[in-house]
């Protein structure tokens, strides 16, 4: 089903309530291969609920329909010197698709933020308001179209990361931010994971205002690990902060400068996770940054390939071994692990989302029922 109006979305949901069908909400389809297969579900394709409703750069707000291609949104705001503030990650290439296929609704609903999430916040932080059709078939609005608002519950927070399990978004208002005119990366080679995480923590704790911090282990970088620190802003400021970071890096070896195209290429590769392309099972592990080395120490001897983003707070692991090992390592480090890429049979057996504690699981279930009492969006995918 591919509704073209909000009323058609309501009709589709009302029909599903009556018939007992389940609906699998889809935007650009770039993340369709995440989660359990769901052959019984009817696809509710929102790609035709598209278009920009309102954009006022000076107010920092953009109101857009969910089916609008992310690339179109990014081009629109770039024209006015701005960016989608949560730096969306692009799942297309790692799941066998193309880059740039995602819709804005898809990246928000999946809550997928890229490298700049470390300093700029995630999708959850920049979704200000929405209009949606609940699993009851009713339209509701939540949040607002201004950047500062505490009126009523912050239901947009639930939307970011809801992954189609609560409601079908028909319009969303995002906070946008200025695009930094200059970006530069300073790197140091040869650190082990623990030293790299300590260095990234020191950089994040410094006054250099680091925007992104990542670590490529030797196996992914021609035999020599690379610790990357990215600085963004106005020219004079970036120049001054680069000097601060070079001093910090100096204690660990000669700082490598990646400017201009080199800087862009380096972070664009992380945005699509090019270093971990392939078809090995892929995990996305969120941990406190200091816990990152313990996760890879547990799994590296078993043949995993991995890298750190978010100063260690995000560990990407390509690993075909036992899923429980990844989940246990994430839990032990105080975080959680999501299965992103795996063969169908494995996705049918291993839940994509890290199983929550029993009390939280029960609460999540009640919150889902608050929006979707009949289970219209219960496809079994997550």
């Amino acid at each position: 089903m591919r509704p073209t109006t909000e009323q058609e979305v309501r009709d589709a949901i009302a029909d599903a309530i009556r018939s007992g069908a389940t609906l699998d909400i889809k935007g650009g389809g770039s993340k369709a291969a995440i989660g359990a297969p769901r052959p019984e579900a009817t696809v509710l394709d929102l790609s035709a609920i598209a278009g920009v409703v309102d954009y006022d750069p000076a107010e920092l707000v953009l109101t857009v329909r969910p089916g609008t291609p992310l690339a179109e949104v990014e081009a629109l705001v770039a024209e006015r010197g701005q960016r989608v503030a949560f730096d969306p990650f692009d799942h297309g290439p790692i799941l066998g698709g193309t880059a740039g296929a995602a819709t804005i609704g898809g990246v928000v609903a999946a809550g997928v933020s890229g490298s700049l999430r470390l300093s700029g916040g995630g999708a959850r932080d920049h979704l200000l308001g929405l209009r949606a059709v609940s699993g009851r078939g009713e339209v509701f609005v939540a949040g607002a179209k201004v950047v500062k608002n505490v009126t009523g519950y912050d239901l947009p927070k639930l939307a970011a990361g809801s992954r189609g399990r609560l409601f079908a978004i028909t319009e969303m208002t995002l906070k946008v931010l200025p695009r930094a005119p200059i970006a530069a990366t300073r790197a140091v080679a040869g650190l082990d994971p623990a030293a790299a995480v300590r260095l990234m923590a020191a950089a994040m704790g410094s006054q250099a205002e680091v925007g992104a911090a990542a670590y490529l282990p030797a196996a992914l970088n021609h035999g020599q690990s690379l610790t990357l620190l990215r600085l963004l802003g106005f020219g004079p400021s970036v120049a001054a902060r680069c000097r601060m970071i070079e001093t910090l890096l100096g204690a660990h070896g000669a700082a490598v400068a990646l400017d201009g195209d080199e800087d862009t290429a380096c972070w664009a590769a992380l945005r699509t996770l090019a270093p971990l392309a392939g078809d090995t099972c892929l995990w996305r592990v969120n941990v406190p940054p200091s816990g990152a080395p313990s996760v890879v120490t547990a799994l590296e001897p078993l043949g995993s390939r991995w890298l750190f983003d978010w100063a260690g707070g995000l560990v990407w692991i390509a690993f075909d071994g036992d899923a429980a090992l990844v989940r246990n390592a994430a839990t032990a480090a105080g975080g959680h692990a999501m299965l992103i890429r795996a063969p169908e049979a494995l996705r049918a057996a291993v839940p994509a989302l890290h199983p929550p504690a029993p009390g939280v699981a029960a609460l999540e279930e009640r919150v889902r029922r608050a929006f979707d009492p009949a289970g219209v969006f219960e496809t079994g995918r997550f």
Partner: protein
Amino acid sequence: MTLKMPQPEAAVLARRAAIVAALRRIVPGEGVIADPDGLRPFESDGLTAYRQPPMVVVLPETTEQVSQVLRWCHDEGVKVVPRGSGTSLSGGALPLADGVLLGLSKFNRVLEVDYDDRLAVVQPGVTNLAVTQAVEARGFYYAPDPSSQIACSIGGNVAENSGGVHCLKYGLTTNNVLGVELVMMDGEIVRLGGRHLDAAGLDLLGVVVGSEGLLGVVTEVTVRILPKPEGARALLIGFPSVESAGQCVADVIAGGIIPAGMEMMDRLAIEAAEAFVKVGYPLDVDALLIVELDGVGAECDHLIDEVTRIAEANGSTTLSASRDEAERLAFWAGRKAAFPAVGRISPDYYCMDGTIPRRRLPDVLERMAQLSAKYGLGVANVFHAGDGNLHPLILYDANKPGELDRAEAFGSDILRLCVEVGGVLTGEHGVGVEKRDLMPDMFGEEDLAQQQRVKCAFDPKGLLNPGKVFPTLHRCAELGRMHIHRGQVPHPDLPRF
């Protein structure tokens, strides 16, 4: 006062002695307050127009005690109102005559600071400023800075999703909290979030922050801490009109600059502030902007030049840039003293808190002037200009019959005006009891029902802080009913904002 709260239940009031005794079994000693003199300090919060002594106050010291108190009240059908420091400006902690007031003031310890992961684990009764004080020796701070930060608690900040003058750049509480320990009304203890970014499943933490004490009681909070910027400089800029000041703000932001703070004051607020603190504010301007830039020295200096250029292009008539820390603080002194300064020129004032799309500022101020004439009450405006959050201060005299009611009616009209132009009822003070009855001006019936269904997921009996936020109480069973007949859903085309 015309405020209507849920009718106290006679059956609960009749059991008061037994309720007090049961609470004393859970929290021994001085942790239960039941005598009238002891209850009086708790009868109001920062919204002092409303007063109601609670049935009993309980001040637990451990999460286990909080859990037992809530479980007992849940099982016995007794309402509970949570309270942090009691500085809410919207009446979020206003007690109920038949309710237990659950104070978190004894949860006052900073439990842990982790500089590597840049976080602090604190108990909810710790004041906002105390978090910064605990980490500043190492050059860190906690970014949200509500003006009550010396007194307000982190638990209260979580409940209200508090902001502050720096939230345009650094975010509200919700953007700076990583995790909480939450006790639900049935006594169950859950941990939401943690020390990492982003939830594994639904972002329940995100909906708890800003839920005004209606979803659970927070007993521990993990907050992000940030390195203090190397420096900060401020500009004090006068404009001949509110329009030109507003255009300057828009041009700064459209020019790619997100200042650490950007505050506007109108003529009455400028005059009151200057008369009070005498820091040299220009008195021949209609609008005054304070723009603060922070970061490394090169950044501050570069942005001072950029903002100066933008201000001059918009016809600023006075402009000074701070040359040192003393001067920067002097620029802020008048703004920070604006509320007490207005208190000197009027016996009482009523502080409002709406947000508007900034481009509507000139019309909103014009309409506000008309309302001021209609109600016969003055209004001074201070304004978080960067994010469109207005704080009109309505001047009145509570000793003059009818003036408080007029001030409240004026305030309600201002908030309706904010909604009418595409804004909201509250930018940072919360709905509480103050704006509760205006919620239908911003939200439709189904919008409010959907929020209340989330409430039901956390507190199906509706015992936690009832009478706040929502203008009407619905039973959860009634909210849960589905109304679909032959594919038709009700209210197909209700107007929405």
